């Protein structure tokens, strides 16, 4: 039996990303980190990504919903807005599916972001 609360919330998210070899930064209420998609127009390119700290209070039991990306990264249109985002960023509504059975939840989140970025293109802000 494990502990849920050994690393809950934003601290757990940051620790998980570090275990995955990333170097996350928290600024203005958003955790940012680089992701490199494996497929799509941005394959092999490092893309900045972010998650609002406010959405990490229930991490890892309930995942964030919004993926924050620089405005130059374009995804197929759905709910997007600039609430709680960094200047020059937008957040995209993207539901993660099948959550709740990953040994490393941060790894599962990165996989989700990578899969979302498969359909992304870089354009004008």
């Amino acid at each position, binding site marked *: 039996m494990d502990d849920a609360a050994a690393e809950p919330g934003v601290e757990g998210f940051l620790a998980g990303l570090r275990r995955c070899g990333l170097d996350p930064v928290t600024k203005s209420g958003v955790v940012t980190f680089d992701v490199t998609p494996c497929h799509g127009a941005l394959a092999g390119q490092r893309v900045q990504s972010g998650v609002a700290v406010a959405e990490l*209070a229930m991490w890892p*039991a*309930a995942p964030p919903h919004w993926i924050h990306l620089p405005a130059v990264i374009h995804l197929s249109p759905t*709910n997007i807005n600039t609430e709680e985002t960094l200047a020059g960023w937008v957040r995209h509504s993207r539901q993660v599916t099948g*959550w709740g*059975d990953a*040994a490393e939840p941060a790894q599962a989140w990165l996989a989700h972001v990578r899969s979302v970025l498969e359909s992304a293109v870089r354009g004008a802000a």
Partner: protein
Amino acid sequence: MSRRSAAMTADIDAQLQTHLLRDDGDEDVCLATYRPSTGSDRTSAVLRRVILPRDGERLVHGNASFTGDYLLRGAAEAAADGCGLAMLHSHPGGRGWQSMSGPDHDAEQSYARLAHTITGKPLIGFTLGGRDGGWSMRNWTPEGRPEWAESVRVVGDCLRVTWNDRLCPPPQLQKTQDRTVSAWGERIQADLARLWFLVVGAGSVGLDVALRLAASGVRHVAVMDFDGVYVVNLDRLIGATRLDVLLCRSKVEVALRLMRAAATAASPDLQSLEMSVCTSEGLAAALDYDVIVSCVDRPWPRAALNGIAYADLIPVVDGGIGIDAFDDGDGMRNATWRSHVVRPGRPCLSCNGQLDLGDVQLDKQGLLDDPRYLAAAGRNGQARQNVAALSASVSASLLAQVVSLVAAPGGRGEPGPLRYTLSAHWLEHVDATTREGCAFEHVTAAGDRRHTLTGPHAAATETAAARAVARRQLRVRAAAALARLSDRLATAARAFATFGGL
């Protein structure tokens, strides 16, 4: 904090019984770790791991005793896991709640301060009665004073509770309960009646469940809901009236009134909790109960309840209905309802496909009620279809799970997830299994180190505020005054009739 209890899984219980009940009939001892599970008015010690003695760590001599080395090892292992220490021993010839002999008392008392110093948590002591597998538990203050628990719960296919009859005496049977007791006997009635039931969600299903529990003689029943009674609820909230809508009453106010009328216990303890289980206050209140019946359909509260089913070993009986209407609004294609007990050893709500954890944030942020968001996302909102004639089937299914869990008809406990399909008239077991990495099953018995699934609940706060504003309207206040007068006249009429021997 006035109430104390303890809980363990059936697996831990089996492990302990295997060790403590010896073939030679002697007593035996062992240690275990526990986590506190802290409610509003009850603290439960949730057993987490058994620490069996190594060679030479305990002495068996008819009676049995711990060595200091064993206690020190156990306390160190407990502290390393953020746990408290439990000392356990058996009374092979004992039955039910056991008191302590002088040597039992002295042994536990002598280690109370040491265990508290090392773990930072009170030492707790357990006694196992060998004749019926009953447990008793006390909590030791650092000063060496025992504080008895009211119950010890073993959570498996059945919920097996050993009661401290001194703190929770079996309720006196009532004439009104004659038919109920004849169905399962006085022992089961005494167990059922003493359980603390919480019904989360006081809609059509939750209200029905709460009333039937109260009518069955359960003494402690609470309903939790933050919502009010509206006109659109009246076709399903049986017993709610247009006056309740006019007076801006909450669902739990109505449920409390109806429960009071239905209750058959001699001194019922019925509570209305106008809050959300998604808040820290609501979750703490939920931890005071032995069984929770989940009658909510939102992802966030179901996630919160899913969490405490495992971390705090409180079985959650959950279910719901899905009605599939034709898109043109002319007819019903099908309806299905499901019920399941969520507990260690059974798939959690996420594993059995009843909860999408990705929806929890959406629910928390109010987006599942935002038409613009839903339209852009290409998804439907919460299902609106509901029918009083069918919600009774959901409550029946939930209550059957409750009875199976508590009364174990035929010696069999709760059946696992069930699904009824109305169009095919087909009841089936749902083939759902726990995912290998289930985040909830993995934190079984985490206690207060459970997943964080609570937070500020904007909708609950806004709903309560709006209701308070509405109740201040002159029209509503005047109607409320008349309703109170009417209630007083009805009470007086009843008293008059009773006095007159009617």
